[in-house]
């Protein structure tokens, strides 16, 4: 179980995110809902162990590589779509031959040999999703994963999310509470510079 207590992140003197208490139990599906600038992406990066909190404690974080974050705007490395997925498999010491299959699962098999630099926003997301899922992590953190996906892409993602058995955290401005075990709202306190988290 991942647990955050009194966690805040301060950047250049401004509080980017504050969470009084958050628990993510093993195998749970947690939605993090919040408008623009409420600190969703910062919280996801804290949960991924990529940035340390300025204050507070975090316990139960799996090591990097077992907890995978898909950024709100995913970054594809230089090279082809295939190279990107193969890289993830390589660092996980898995056979790179599986890269095309993972791309196919997100309807991106035809993009395999295209340079990442020429892909559209939706295509980048499909490749980045294939790259994140191929790791088969214990915890998957997806920051606005449906953004820029067309109907086919969204269906493929829904299918993979249903099949995923690990812990899942999805951050987005709008989330349906019925699809998650828990949905927490990140809200901006109107009279304070900081934000706090509240459970719905």
């Amino acid at each position, binding site marked *: 179980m991942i647990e955050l207590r009194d966690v805040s992140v301060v950047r250049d003197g401004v509080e980017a995110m504050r969470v009084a208490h958050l628990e993510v139990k093993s195998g749970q599906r947690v939605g993090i809902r919040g408008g623009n600038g409420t600190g969703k992406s910062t919280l996801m*990066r804290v949960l*991924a162990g*990529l940035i340390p909190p300025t204050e507070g404690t975090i316990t139960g974080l799996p090591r*990097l*590589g*077992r*907890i*995978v*974050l898909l*950024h709100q*705007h*995913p*970054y594809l*490395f*230089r090279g082809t779509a295939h190279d990107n997925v193969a*890289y*993830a498999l390589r*660092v*996980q010491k898995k056979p790179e031959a599986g890269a095309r299959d993972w791309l196919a699962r997100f309807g991106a098999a035809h993009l395999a040999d295209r340079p990442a*630099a020429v892909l559209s926003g939706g295509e980048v997301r499909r490749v980045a999703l294939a*790259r*994140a899922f191929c*790791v088969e992590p214990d915890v998957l953190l997806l920051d606005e994963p449906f953004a820029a996906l067309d109907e086919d892409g969204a269906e493929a993602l829904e299918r993979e999310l249903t099949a995923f058995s690990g812990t899942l955290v999805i951050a987005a401005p709008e989330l349906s509470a019925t699809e998650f075990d828990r949905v927490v709202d990140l809200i901006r306190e109107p009279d304070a510079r900081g934000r706090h988290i509240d459970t719905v």
Partner: protein
Amino acid sequence: MSFLADGFVEAWRLITSGSPEVFHALGVSVLCTLLAITLAALIAVPYGAWLGLFRPRTGRAQVFALRVGMAFPTVVIGLLVYAMFSRRGFLGSFDLLYTRAAIITGEFVLAFPLLGSLAHGAAASLDRRVTETALTLGATRGQALRRALGEIRPAIAAAYLAAFGRCITELGIAITVGGNLRMRTRTLPSTIQWELTRGNFAAALAPGLLLLGLACAAAVVTHRLSREAQR
């Protein structure tokens, strides 16, 4: 006017006839420069990139030291290397003063801060998602550093060529620790200096034209790589 024209004609003749002295100096210059900057790049580029990507606690001081190193006068670098390799220096027993190895050492010292600083700049301005993505996919810090180096490859190549341009035209180090020995440690810049002191304008111009060609080629490639890096 005829002095200049005659000089060019004679210089061109020296080049096209394959003057052994000029082409030996070209060989020494290119060999020493390539070895020095390649050795420097092997250490300075990962080091500079590491400073830019992972921002260690003493990173600012180290970047400052690299920048001071970039501004170091080359004659002073030559003096320091001279002090190292002179008989009373701590590496004097190796008897390397006035050899190509001494020139390579001096140019290594010259190129290191330049390569380190440029690699740091490129890495520091790299999108933080590169290392974050690599780390979150399970890469070690070393693997993430290698990935980041791959992303800034054009900038690294441009830094390499900038170091080439700086070292190939270097005179202070070549004379101070190379000794300007004919057919041994004489480089293109030191040939120019030597021939000019003897009043041989055409003989000075021939290596000058070769040097100009090399520097222009390095500048063109650097420019192209810089444009690619900006894409």
